[in-house]
């Protein structure tokens, strides 16, 4: 390593919240001109560490050095003045304002009487955008830009100060592959200028592409730093979760029953076309594809949230019309949605009420809801799914991600569906609960449920599915059995490359 003083160094940082030791003696440094990746599961302390870096939290113990000099940063503004800039995962831009105004927000150049000096503003912002090789000028309205370009505006904002350290928090979460390449070019460019870069991400392959060193956090404590060139994914995963995750391919022979769901030539506007597939009871069918391939949209159509433009949906051999979630539920289709908190749960309600929500109107004694019937249902699914909660009165918002997901699954199992659709079953769930959810999905198939799993994680899809349907731009490219599928042919299929020309329907 270099001998010059690091751009940024943290020593023994401790930060506690009531009841939680969020950071427990974390040390971390970034050299000028280095990309240092920060890895850890949800809840490992990454966001807290970042907030300490950005002056949003004050550490209880520990020291922060910038360029060898100890500093305290009490506000984000002070952090910025010290040259530490954070590029947020959730962009914080004023959509109605121009790119230039956003870049200099809070520090707009002024003329006399407090008027904005538009010429200087446009010139300075234009120069920065030029430097980033952005394809748009300073005068465009930010709301009209793509997400990738909005991110450019955020980065440009970071460059208005003489940034010595730039922290990227999950920057590629909503970028396309082409946009990712551009972002990486910019990061390399910053690096060449001697800026220290902290790169936070979950995505292993990105980290290996861009970083020089990798530091790992687990449960709020520092687990070590690896030099990217000398390590591999396994070693990093080991460090991250303390053991390796079992994601071997599913080998369990499917115990197929009758066809539960058959979809014939289903189309929905420009979202997906000519989609046909069958799901048997006792089978898990995985849908794999890139974001925007139309997988979630198919699920939403089956659940009555979208109206198909043509095609047919048959349940147990009978054609049905599904016009709303109400009719989907009546027909025995249930959906565990992609975003648990936004679409699946009422966070301010307790566990029991969330589970019984779709059927509460059937659980009445006279005009009143029957407490006993509800508690019986809750108890049943708490035991069946091993939901960890002190009691049914606990608000769902206070549960962990894994237990929240189990509540959503329990909610739908209690409706005894014929077809259960699970969209991104383990998004935002820690590794331990992940394997529990995977096991649960396999169990459900064994019990005779027809299950559709939509996932963006290839190992997950391969781990839980009996069959995998690969989608590309709204079409089914190929169907694989669990014996046929390999990472290579799956990646080809979802990238639109048809192997040996046989497009399965």
């Amino acid at each position: 390593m270099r001998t010059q003083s690091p751009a940024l160094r943290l020593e023994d940082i401790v930060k506690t919240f009531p009841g939680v030791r969020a950071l427990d003696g974390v040390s971390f440094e970034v050299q000028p001109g280095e990309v240092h990746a920060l890895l850890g599961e949800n809840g490992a302390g990454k966001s807290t560490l970042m907030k300490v870096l950005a002056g949003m939290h004050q550490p209880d113990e520990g020291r922060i050095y910038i360029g060898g000099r100890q500093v305290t940063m009490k506000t984000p503004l002070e952090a910025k003045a010290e040259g530490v800039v954070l590029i947020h995962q959730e962009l914080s831009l004023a959509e109605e304002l121009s790119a230039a105004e956003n870049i200099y927000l809070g520090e707009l150049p002024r003329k006399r009487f407090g008027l904005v000096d538009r010429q200087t503003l446009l010139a300075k912002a234009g120069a920065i955008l030029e430097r980033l090789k952005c394809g748009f000028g300073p005068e465009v309205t930010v709301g009209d830009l793509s997400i990738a370009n909005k991110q450019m505006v955020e980065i440009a904002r970071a460059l208005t100060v003489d940034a010595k350290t730039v922290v990227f928090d999950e920057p590629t979460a909503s970028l396309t592959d082409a946009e990712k390449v551009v972002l990486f070019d910019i990061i390399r460019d910053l690096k060449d200028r001697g800026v220290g870069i902290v790169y936070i991400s979950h995505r292993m392959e990105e980290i290996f592409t861009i970083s020089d060193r990798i530091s790992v956090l687990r449960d709020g404590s520092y687990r070590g730093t690896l030099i990217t060139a000398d390590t591999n994914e396994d070693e990093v995963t080991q460090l991250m979760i303390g053991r390796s995750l079992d994601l071997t391919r599913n080998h369990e022979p499917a115990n197929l029953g009758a066809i539960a769901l058959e979809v014939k030539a289903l189309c929905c506007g420009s979202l997906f076309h000519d989609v046909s597939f069958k799901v048997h009871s006792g089978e898990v069918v995985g849908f794999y594809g890139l974001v925007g391939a139309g997988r979630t949209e198919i699920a939403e159509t089956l659940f009555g949230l979208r109206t198909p433009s043509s095609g047919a949906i048959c349940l147990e051999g009978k054609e049905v019309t599904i016009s709303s979630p109400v009719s989907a539920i009546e027909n025995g289709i249930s959906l565990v949605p992609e975003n648990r908190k936004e679409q699946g749960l009422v966070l301010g309600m307790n566990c029991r009420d969330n589970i019984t929500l779709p059927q509460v109107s059937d659980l009445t004694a006279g005009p009143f809801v029957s407490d006993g019937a509800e508690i019986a249902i809750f108890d049943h699914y708490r035991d069946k799914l091993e939901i960890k909660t002190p009691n049914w009165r606990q608000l769902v918002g206070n549960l962990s991600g894994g237990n929240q997901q189990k509540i959503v699954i329990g909610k739908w199992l209690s409706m005894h569906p014929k077809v259960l659709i699970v969209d991104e079953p383990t998004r935002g769930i820690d590794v331990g609960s992940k394997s529990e959810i995977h096991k649960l999905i396999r169990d459900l198939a064994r019990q005779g449920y027809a299950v559709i799993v939509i996932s963006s994680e290839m190992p997950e899809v391969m781990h839980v599915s009996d069959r995998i349907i690969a989608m590309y731009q709204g079409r089914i490219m190929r169907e694989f059995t669990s014996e046929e599928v390999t990472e290579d042919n799956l990646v080809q299929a979802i990238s639109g490359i048809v192997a040996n020309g046989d497009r399965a329907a």
Partner: protein
Amino acid sequence: MTTSNRTKTIKRGAIWGFIVLELIFFSVAGRFLSVSQTQFMDLDNMLLLLKQSAPIGIIALGMTVIMINGNIDLSVGAIFALCAIVMLDSQTWPIFAGLGELGVIPFAWGMALLTGMVLGAINGLIVWKTGVDAFIVTLGAMLGYRGLVFMYNGEQPTFLLNWTLVDMIESSLLGLEFPAIAFIVLTFLIWFLMTKTVHGRNAYAVGDNREAAVNAGIRVGPHMLWNFVLIGFLTALSSIVFYSASGSVNPNDGELYELWAITAVVLGGTKLTGGSGSVINTFGGVIAIQLLRKGLGHIGADTETVNLVIGLILIAVLFLDRQLNVKGKGELRT
């Protein structure tokens, strides 16, 4: 966990603590400053207070339901006035002639209740079918319905005294007059509705997370429509309670009632964003405001001062609520 439970208990009991504080303050301050000789915490005085709280209180019950549901209704003041006109005026309609002073009462009340429910249904239908925010829809309705009030009788007050009706309203049970009884009974009925029935359960779910409610198969549109019908019904009831005895309604009556009702609901701890709140605490909010009005009057403050104080207290309460919430959230952040 225990701290967040404590925070919750504090928030739930806050309004009652505030009421106790008011009672103590006005009783003590009344000794030195009172313009009258009577005690503040006199039973008659308290019963009168309950009766005076009833009109805004009954509306506030409906507003609680609407706000838990994630909506708001600004048109209740105008509905209040229109129902009053219908109730008084309908007693002179030729079709009800010959029914006598007693016989006409159910019909007049029925007409008023029907008016309230229809006006509420119009709001609900527009909110459901257009998807426009309830704030905007009922803001329009507030102006529109007030327009109807003026079209009915111009600038003139509508006037009718039915002595049988007056006697009925002023008759009392255990010292409680009809309006007070109506307020208490309705509070319990709506409390039952919100805590024990499917409709109430769904109201909280829709207010907390509308998308999840849709995904759980709740028919959100019709559900919200019923809540607007309910607040229309309650507003009409409030109007009946108030005008049966007074017998005279001015076209500007009921103005700002929507804001008083919202103030009471918010003081009672119901969230403006929906999903949480309690009818019983709204009852507390209504009583707290009325106590403040009466108490300040008791120690010789004028109306302007009363409004200023209530405004300041409302802001202070919301500030405290925010502090408690921030604290609660900080604990969960990891």
